[in-house]
């Protein structure tokens, strides 16, 4: 559950009206301002340019080709307006799309499975993190990255707790969030993080985003 935070100015791009309206209502009820809700990538680009929102929530598949218009638009927005966070959400999880998104963006990006809207507070929490320049990666993508990672030997050298922490790091969680999620103290989290980065041979990073990128690069390589 996110604490009370400043209202966000949000643009929604989603071609299914029922989801677009549902999201708009839910976000509005939570005190945020949906400045535009559009149905395709072109309208999204215009709305983002016009309203300069804190964050854009973008469906991957939109007209006209229903393939990855949303992803392309998200990358373009991030390029042109890095101050606007982009949260791409999709019916299907594709590690490659996530990788593409995170390769370009040091922060202010998110990639979530559409199902995550079901857990409203978590979803709004994710939006807020992206709006604040943080990074959000769907746990499912992280799980796939873990299972496809070629560094199995090194990963096997981590304790189960450390693997849990690494997974949360890859999802974009801060130390405080990890501490809350695992019911441990922030100090213990710091110890785990240091140990993980040491074992994986990664340079310790000061910011959350840098360590997310480091973790992802590691899992992918």
């Amino acid at each position, binding site marked *: 559950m996110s604490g009370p935070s400043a209202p966000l100015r949000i643009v929604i791009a989603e*071609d*299914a009206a*029922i*989801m677009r309206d*549902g*999201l708009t209502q*839910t976000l509005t*009820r939570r005190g945020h301002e949906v400045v535009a809700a559009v149905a395709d990538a072109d309208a999204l680009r215009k709305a983002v340019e016009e309203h300069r929102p804190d964050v854009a929530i973008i469906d991957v*598949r939109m007209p006209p*080709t*229903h*393939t*990855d218009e949303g992803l392309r638009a998200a990358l373009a927005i991030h390029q042109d307006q890095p101050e606007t966070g982009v949260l791409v959400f999709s*019916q*299907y999880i*594709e*590690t*490659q799309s996530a*990788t593409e998104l995170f390769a370009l963006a040091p922060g202010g990006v998110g990639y979530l499975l*559409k*199902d995550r*809207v*079901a*857990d*409203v*507070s978590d979803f709004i929490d994710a939006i807020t993190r992206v709006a604040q320049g943080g990074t959000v990666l769907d746990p499912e993508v992280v799980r*796939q990255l873990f*299972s*496809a990672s*070629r560094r199995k030997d090194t990963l096997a050298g981590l304790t189960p707790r450390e693997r849990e922490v690494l997974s949360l790091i890859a999802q974009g969680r801060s130390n405080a969030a990890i501490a809350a999620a695992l019911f441990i103290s922030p100090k213990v989290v710091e110890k785990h993080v240091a140990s993980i980065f040491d074992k994986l041979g990664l340079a310790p990073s000061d910011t959350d985003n840098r360590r997310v990128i480091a973790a992802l690069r590691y899992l992918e390589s």
Partner: protein
Amino acid sequence: MEPYAGIMLQDVYAWVRRHPRTADGVLAALLLAGSAGQLRISPLSTALAATAVSGVLAVTVIVRRRDPVAAFAAAALIGAAQLVFGLQPDGGGPPVRALEPTVTDLALAVLLYTLAAYRPRRISLAGLAACLAGAAVAVARWAPAHAANSGELLLAASAGLGAAVLTAWVLGDSMAYRRAYYVSLEDRIAVAERARELQERRARAVDESAARLRRIERDLHDGAQVRLAALAMTLGEIKENLEQVADDDRMLAMVGAAHQNAKDTLAELRDLARGIHPPVLDRGLGPALAILAGTSAIPVRLTDSVTERPSPAIEAIAYFCAAELLANVTKHSGANQITIGVREQDSGIVMSVTDDGDGGARLVPGGGLAGLLERVQTVDGKLAVDSPPGGPTSVTIELPRHA
């Protein structure tokens, strides 16, 4: 000149083929004309009787196609009568003039030809035997009356008659053979045409089914999945609101269960939709395989040199085969490295999936590889497995560009 003559003959043949009755009529008239001399016989009654005999022979030619056996039998009867009564028997009385052989008797050769051309050999051979016997008897009975003539002439007459009869039979027989050959040729052409037609229909069915699957996936994506996600979102909100007030645990538990059910159903529906048509395929086989490779637990090296995209149905078959093969390798082979290669070959694509695992994979009825083979065969594709014990294993799939 020659091509011109050839065309002329061809035209005549074509005309004869188009007008068989008229052609036979003309032939009969010509044969009848050969015995026109009989009209000069006196008395008139004899002349008319002789002409009537020739007329019957001519009629057998006209009806020869309708009933070759009956026509031949009738002509043969007349011929036999002529042999007995029309030729001066040895030391017998004078021949019956109305039954003397004439040019019209050539009708017998025509009828023997017809018999050989339109009836089975056992029947036409009997006709041939009858004709040869008749010819022999004719020469034998004719010879004494012309004793003055040399033996050479006798021999020539026998040989001539025999050769004429044989030639008629051989011509007819070869015609029958040729016709049977044409019939079998036509059958084969019909079979080939049918095969091509079925192939086209199958291609349409395969494309149509691929398009339909894609449509179903899209409908699910735009319809049921979105509605369900919206429903789950609403349930999630209700649940969170109930948690805030938290004075009805029973209600909270029920809403919580409904919320969880909606989320589980979403996950199931997603797997189902992806099984129907992986949306990544819309971007092409190469990108789809790259995504597949990216999620493999065993490292995959992918090379894709296909420039012109195959039809969606073919891409789907190749993709599902690759997915199944990757799963097989992961489960059974103990491999450390997988290589997927896709390239163009002739009018199709070749995809090979190779691993450095234990080998020993085999195509067994009902097995996973047999399932892939069946799938590949629906579009005339091929699947070959090379997997010696100890590895490496290589499965090669050839697919046409279109179904």
